[in-house]
């Protein structure tokens, strides 16, 4: 073993000077993979940390007391009642609120928006409220008596300016800012129980303003509390509930805790669920980068196999032989790790922008996660170490004379040798060269193609995910809009008789060409052995402007069965004709609602990917005790009348709570998918850069390996474009192999993502794996065209080659 460290260091530094561009490019490749792995792998930690800090910043309640619908109490009564309870000494802060339904009408860039809303009146004086605080994101806190805030999610979905005139419950108000409050960081309500961003608004106002707008002066119906540190929250909830039941039974008070906050539950659940998808993408990109780095580094070392053989001939042992490749690996590993930190920070910045759009939280933290980075870096460095060691391991397994004789330039063809000799290809020797070169080195070809395939697979899987989501939107749009694309849905203020003045008024409104009253309720569906699914059950009159499309079974005009989505039928494990148990609220004789269950047969299935959407004929609704009621009116505008103009016409009419185009649901889906799209574009971009880096590095290494061959071609009189063209043809062949393999692998990955992981994250939507022509074109461009064009980068080197010196070089 050579003991002169100085010699080895000088040698290694000269090697680095000679190929600094290649080392830098491979290190960059690893850095991008590691950086993206760190960024995407940190998303859950960022979101959870952002959730934790946002909820803590605004003093989210520990306990909430909500009075029964329609019941309220004098201001101060709830605080006194709580103070007098056994929980009193543990209360650190308390705030009374007034909540009530209303309707918000506001001008948005897309037109007048009329939506159902929830008014939330809180103490804003003195910087309040002290529990479930209100952060203002854009605009300012209300100062005047008619000033309100709308929730940031609604304002973003509707693209509202920070300040605009509006009406709340018909009364003029001014929206002066966007509010962020713990219970409504994300609004989980929507038409028929399906959350649709921008379909329901949370209007936050000073308590006196809310009391005036809700016509409940001096009244409150809600109380939120925080407890001192160390208090047993669940025990306190039970104690407070029991006390209020005894002390004020008429209030119908319900006590809930932090864990019952729906938006909080969804924020944390989504963080976990989305991370599963992001981790797959991150692992894919890192695997692609690591495989590519392995391929490139092993080829660089393989190219020096003759020198390894000479070292063996001089008596160097395996450790001595491995020293130079190890130093190469160390250089790439160190540089890659350093660049990886920078890449991780850059990716975090890019993803932070995406998260800021996705999550309307007052605090967003995206700290660098060293643990995640180290995991990714170890994988990358592992690939580098393996890549440097593998050719040495291969070399020492043969005799020195074999190692010296069979350098990287000598391709024996392996098992393909005899077959290659018998192969008769069209064209002259030059035309045959690219295919023969590819077949002559099957291991190297396979390794290079595998590196390209890995990156192409990443691109295909990522773009294919977007294709699948877009296909889902398309299927929903085709089904939902169908023959009446301009259809609008008028949501009534509550279930009303079909022949009520409000319903008749909508049907008779100017601009309405056709109208059909329908009812939409939320219901739970269960079949034998299945979990309960939430359905948004709507009546579908046979003479209405729109009909669902049965894909199995039948949905006759007088049918009493349910038309389920294909996804719901599959999840419930039922076929047409089989029964399911439906749990829903039906009108009670006393005018209220009563929870009930019923067995209903499945009439058939429809293709809309929204799992919750289900339909009943009026006959079926009547059988369930829901006959003669309408909660919505499906309207078709007259020619030339848009849904937006219809909304203006109908807004403010008696009984009308909201007007929205029929595409609102698919628009919501598109918004949700746009969030994923924004995140996925980051790894797609990095995968494309990786592919270009691989192509560049491969072309550079090929040029080094073929130096003598190209010099010989130039020496016999061929122009530089000939060896460059042959290199491009050979690269195209390898790229084609890689692209084909990548598409196959990418399709398998896509199916895994869509059919195994997405149902865990988005069970409410039936997404199907699909690849668009655009994605296949992208795979071809990345895998074939970019790789094939890469040798053009070496044409300059060919033109400037010192042919005699190159022919004299004996590597």
């Amino acid at each position, binding site marked *: 073993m*050579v*003991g*002169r460290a100085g*010699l080895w260091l*000088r*040698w290694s530094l*000269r*090697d680095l000077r*000679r190929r600094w561009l290649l080392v830098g490019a491979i290190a960059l490749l690893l850095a991008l993979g590691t950086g993206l792995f760190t960024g995407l792998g940190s998303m859950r930690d960022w979101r959870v940390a952002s959730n934790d800090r946002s909820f803590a910043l605004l003093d989210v309640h520990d306990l909430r007391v909500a009075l029964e619908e329609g019941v309220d109490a004098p201001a101060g009564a709830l605080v006194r009642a709580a103070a007098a309870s056994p929980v009193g000494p543990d209360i650190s802060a308390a705030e009374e609120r007034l909540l009530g339904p209303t309707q918000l009408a506001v001008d948005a860039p897309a037109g007048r928006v009329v939506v159902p809303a929830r008014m939330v009146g809180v103490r804003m004086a003195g910087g309040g409220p002290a529990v479930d605080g209100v952060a203002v994101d854009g605009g300012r806190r209300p100062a005047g008596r008619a000033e309100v805030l709308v929730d940031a999610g609604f304002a973003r979905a509707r693209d509202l300016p920070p300040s605009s005139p509006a009406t709340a419950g018909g009364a003029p108000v001014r929206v002066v800012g966007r509010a962020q409050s713990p219970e409504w960081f994300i609004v989980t309500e929507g038409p028929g129980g399906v959350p649709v961003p921008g379909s329901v608004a949370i209007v936050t106002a000073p308590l006196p303003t809310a009391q005036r707008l809700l016509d409940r002066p001096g009244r409150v119906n809600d109380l939120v509390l925080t407890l001192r540190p160390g208090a047993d929250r669940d025990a306190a909830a039970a104690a407070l509930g029991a006390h209020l039941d005894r002390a004020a039974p008429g209030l119908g008070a319900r006590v809930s805790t932090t864990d019952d906050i729906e938006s909080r539950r969804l924020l944390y659940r989504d963080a976990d669920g989305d991370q599963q998808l992001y981790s797959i993408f991150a692992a894919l990109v890192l695997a692609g980068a690591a495989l590519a780095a392995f391929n490139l580094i092993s080829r660089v070392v393989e190219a020096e196999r*003759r*020198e390894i053989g*000479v070292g*063996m*001939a*001089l*008596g*160097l*042992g395996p450790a*001595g032989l491995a020293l130079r490749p190890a130093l190469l690996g160390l250089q790439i590993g160190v540089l890659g790790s350093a660049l990886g930190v920078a890449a991780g920070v850059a990716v975090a910045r890019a993803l932070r922008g995406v998260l800021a759009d996705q999550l309307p939280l007052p605090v967003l933290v995206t700290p660098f996660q060293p643990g995640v980075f180290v995991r990714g870096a170890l994988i990358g460095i592992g690939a580098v170490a393996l890549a440097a060691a593998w050719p040495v391991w291969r070399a*020492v397994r043969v*005799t*020195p*004379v*074999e190692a*010296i004789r069979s350098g990287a330039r000598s391709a024996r063809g392996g098992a393909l*040798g*005899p077959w290659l000799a018998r192969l008769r290809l069209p064209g002259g020797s030059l035309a045959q060269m690219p295919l023969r070169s590819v077949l002559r080195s099957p291991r190297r070809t396979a390794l290079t193609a595998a590196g390209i395939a890995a990156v192409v697979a990443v691109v295909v899987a990522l773009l294919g995910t977007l294709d699948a989501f877009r296909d889902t939107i398309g299927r929903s749009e085709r089904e939902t809009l169908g023959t009446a694309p301009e259809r609008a849905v008028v949501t009534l203020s509550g279930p009303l008789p079909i022949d009520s003045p409000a319903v008749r008024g909508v049907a008779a409104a100017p601009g309405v060409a056709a109208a059909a009253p329908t009812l939409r309720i939320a219901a739970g569906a269960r079949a034998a052995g299945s979990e309960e699914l939430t359905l948004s059950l709507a009546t579908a009159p046979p003479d209405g402007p729109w009909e669902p499309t049965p894909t199995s079974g039948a949905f006759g005009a007088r049918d009493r069965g349910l038309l389920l989505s294909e996804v719901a039928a599959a999840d419930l494990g039922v076929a047409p004709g089989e029964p399911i148990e439906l749990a829903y609220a039906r009108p009670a004789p006393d005018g209220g609602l009563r929870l009930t269950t019923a067995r209903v047969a499945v009439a058939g299935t429809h293709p809309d990917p929204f799992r919750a959407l289900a339909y009943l004929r009026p006959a079926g609704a009547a059988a369930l005790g829901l006959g003669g009621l309408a909660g919505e009116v499906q309207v078709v505008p007259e020619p030339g009348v848009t849904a937006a103009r219809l909304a203006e016409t109908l807004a403010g009419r008696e009984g009308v709570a909201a007007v929205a185009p029929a595409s609102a649901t698919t628009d919501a889906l598109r918004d949700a998918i746009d969030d994923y799209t924004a995140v996925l574009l980051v790894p797609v971009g990095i995968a494309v850069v990786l592919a270009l880096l691989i192509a560049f590095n491969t072309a550079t290494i090929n040029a080094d390996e073929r130096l003598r061959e190209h010099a010989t071609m130039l020496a016999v009189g061929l122009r530089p474009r000939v060896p460059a063209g042959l290199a491009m043809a050979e690269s195209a062949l390898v790229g084609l192999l890689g692209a084909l393999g990548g598409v196959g692998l990418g399709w398998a990955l896509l199916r895994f993502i869509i059919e195994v992981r997405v149902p865990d994250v988005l069970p409410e939507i039936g997404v199907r794996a699909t690849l668009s022509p655009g994605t296949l074109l992208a795979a071809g461009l990345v895998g074939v065209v970019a790789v094939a064009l890469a040798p053009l980068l070496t044409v300059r080197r060919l033109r400037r080659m010192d042919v005699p*010196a190159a022919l*004299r*070089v*004996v*590597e």
Partner: protein
Amino acid sequence: MVDVAAPAGVAGPGGRPPDGPLIRLEGVAREYRVGDSRVVALAGVDLAVEAGEFVVVLGPSGSGKTTLLNMIGALDTPTVGRLVIAGRDLTSAGRGELARFRRHAVSFIFQVFNLFPGLTALENVEFGADVAGRQGARERARRMLDRVGLAERAAHFPHELSGGEQQRVAIARALASGNPVLLADEPTGELDFRTGVQILELLHDQTHTAGTAVLVVTHNREIARVADRVVEMSSGRVVRDGPNPGGPAPISALQW
């Protein structure tokens, strides 16, 4: 005076010579399989070379002379037969032992030089001394380069040297190791006459100054005239093995 540190079991100048010849081959054969074919590169070769002998292995292309050299240099392993070189039986030696043998017992000069392109002339020679475990490798390398007449080219890289200069660097590297066996595969094959003569002088000198056993493989009969002994090969067999009739000729008398 060349400083040669004698490896264990091998005689150096002034030391007790090993029992028997320095190089001994008994029935050594080498076969290769190429597809369904069997190629016999060596067919039962017996050979013995003493320390200080200058032996030329002569034969046409494909006669097995390079394969013979590779066997002796432990660059390849025989299919059958026994090899004892510098007191070591290499017949069933493992990779580690073969590597140690190559470090301390033989030095190889290749037809195509096989210098490390990333090292200067001096560093290439120093590498040879270092691998062999010689003390003061750098100084030793300078002396060897001076001996082959390339002291002024010490800082030059191989691609900056002519073919003859590269071969002289390769010889200097081999000499710097100080090993008792020096194997040269067509050392003058790439060189002009004048340079080839210089190379032969350096190799021949080694037998006298260091008692090194030198084996030179060539197809050039003229070079065989300077040998103490000529081993002639054909089709993998030794067809003649004996001293030059009339004794070895002076190198100055060679013409090709």
